[in-house]
């Protein structure tokens, strides 16, 4: 009988340790934290670190998630299934925090006295391996804000329903200029919350409309309850792509929550995964063009608000902003995401040809 040949098993991969674990804190600090963000935080002074398994982190506001509601040690809440490593670098003006587990690395910039719960989160960026998306395991990382287990909305890149043999990483980023929060400037916590998460007000349409009218007059786009840090949009996408490419990923993806975010990533060559969603965005953009052609002047932030508005009860949508059909596909409440992607090398373009 022929001698049996053992096939190689990629143990790390099978246990959920992805190439993202190779990203160093130094890379995150120098390549993803922008010059303005670093300047705001000041110099790194020292650090503490350790592996954690609780939802509560190292200081007030420093929390992680347990989206699958695992109850450990005989049914106790407050724990996460997959331990994560956390490093808190104290800086002159706050803290630079890096959290990581096998599938995600997530970094935070805290401005102010973080130890006493008086700091502002001014920056958050992350890279997440998508290999478990569409399964319960996707939600097992403690470093998530949203669920990704729905196989319809969060399936990996697929052709004719079959996932392609390719690796993909999701980027996410949020930035907030310190002192610029709506609630800090206006004392209006409800308006702040509305601007941050407008879709959560759709169940109260009159209130939505009232707050919408106020938001319309601000310089804030939906999602921006603080002003963005100016250099983030210029620096971040190429840096994310460079890191992902270096790690050997085939694709980088994002799920833009609003029109201005989608257009930002489009500018860097990202494409929509779902042709139906792509058509929806095209319809929204055509509608915005029509509104403008009718003499309504729209700022970029108002264009994003117009998209949000289409999810409101039809009879409440102001006539001049009505698009009669297309709706923004991602509300950050349900799991439907507007997945976009960018191939990271020529071979990847062949793996997932542009539709």
């Amino acid at each position, binding site marked *: *009988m022929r001698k*049996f040949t*053992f*096939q*190689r*098993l990629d*143990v*790390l991969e*099978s*246990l*959920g*340790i992805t190439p993202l*674990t*190779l990203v*160093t*804190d*130094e890379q995150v*600090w120098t390549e993803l934290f922008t010059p303005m963000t670093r300047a705001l935080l000041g*110099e*790194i*002074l020292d*650090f503490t*670190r350790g*592996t954690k*398994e609780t939802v509560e982190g190292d200081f007030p506001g420093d929390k992680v998630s347990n989206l*699958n*509601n*695992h*109850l*450990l*040690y*005989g*049914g106790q809440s407050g724990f996460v*299934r*997959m*331990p*994560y*490593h956390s*490093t808190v*670098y104290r800086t002159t003006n706050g803290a630079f925090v890096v959290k*990581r*587990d*096998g599938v995600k690395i997530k970094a935070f910039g805290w401005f102010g006295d973080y130890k006493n719960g008086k700091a502002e989160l001014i920056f958050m960026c992350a890279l997440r391996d998508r290999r478990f998306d569409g399964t*319960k*395991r996707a939600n097992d990382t403690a470093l998530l804000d949203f669920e990704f287990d729905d196989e319809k909305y969060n399936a990996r890149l697929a052709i004719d329903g079959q996932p392609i043999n390719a690796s993909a990483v999701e980027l996410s980023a949020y930035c907030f200029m310190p002192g610029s929060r709506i609630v800090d400037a206006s004392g209006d916590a409800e308006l702040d919350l509305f601007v941050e998460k407008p879709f959560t007000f759709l169940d109260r349409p009159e209130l939505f409309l009232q707050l919408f009218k106020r938001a319309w007059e601000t310089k804030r786009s939906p999602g921006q309850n603080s002003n963005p840090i100016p250099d983030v949009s210029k620096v971040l996408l190429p840096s994310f792509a460079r890191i992902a490419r270096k790690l050997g990923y085939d694709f980088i993806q994002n799920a833009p929550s609003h029109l201005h975010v989608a257009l930002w990533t489009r500018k860097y060559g990202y494409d929509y995964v779902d042709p139906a969603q792509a058509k929806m965005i095209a319809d929204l953009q055509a509608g915005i063009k029509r509104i403008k052609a009718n003499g309504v002047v729209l700022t970029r932030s108002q264009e994003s608000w117009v998209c949000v508005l289409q999810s409101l009860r039809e009879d409440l949508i102001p006539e001049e902003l009505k698009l009669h059909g297309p709706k923004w596909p991602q509300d950050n409440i349900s799991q439907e995401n507007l997945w976009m992607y960018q191939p990271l090398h020529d071979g990847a373009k062949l793996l997932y040809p542009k539709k």
Partner: protein
Amino acid sequence: MFKFPHLDVTAQLGITPICMVSDSEIWTHLVTPTVKGLLGPIVSQAAPELLDTVQGKFFGDEVSNLNDHRLYGGKTGFVRFPYSYSFYKTLNGAFIVKRDGVKFEAFCWYGDIDRTPELILKAALRDRRFDGTPRANDTALVDYPYDDPQFNTPLHPSLKSVELSIYGFMPGSRIADATGEPEFDRFVASPFSFLDRPALFLTYFKRAWNTKRSPGQHSAPIKDVSSHSLPGFERIARAHGYDLIEMAASHYHVAKWAQSGGYVFASSEQARTFAAINEALAAIRSAGHPLTRTQQSWACVAQSLPVEHIPADINMRGPIWMQDNLGQQCLWVHKPMTERARQALLPPS
């Protein structure tokens, strides 16, 4: 300018060198010639899977959830850390390797996996870095808890240490199969669990005394397992960068086997107890009671009975066997693999 410290992320996340041991290394160095002969050659391999339930693929293939984690809103039947599962069909059975970040465990099953196969070999190496903490029990591949800091704290904080465990069972030799008596089988497998019923313990003890089975051996051992496994384990541990290899000896004959392989006791107190047991056994023999090696092990077990139940001719009047596999107290023995370990474990001069 701030200098960023090095961080071994995979190690921090509980991924240790032991999970990198390949199935091929295990088959080559831990599955002995006799076991390979019994199993026959590997004929096919199933696609490796990642499992996260206690339930295995067939009866006897289960794993554990010692910390009683209840996942997905409180459901039982899941394990905290998924483990990979490699299945190889052999001519006469199956070779299975389970592994997670801290342990691999190999199983050789003899017979038709879909019917009632017999486990004939179980061999494992487990990284001890989490011992003495609840995390030690989080691997689904442990049969006993190791979280007690008093009994299971690693020997040295900076030495990389791995625990070996090995069981070999000759097919068809199980006591229950030969006698039709599952309770007697259980007694031989786990005699300390009968101590709460001393009369029954003594009944079975007297029967076991006359068998060729040592405590723990509810099946006959496979002869070459004792000669092959220690060098095989050590070779693997050394190749994967471990400083120290350890085991928890459940019975006297296992401790003697480990000693003959160069293992020494971790605890000086336990070493003294072991020496006292050796002296007592010598005294019993010189009093005219010849003891086989298996009887020596049984004599050690008997010392845990209430004193009035210990047969007078084997009463050691003091020393008690240190590991009962019920509590967490283990009889840790170890062998340094590196010069670094030898130096670190030198007794203070």
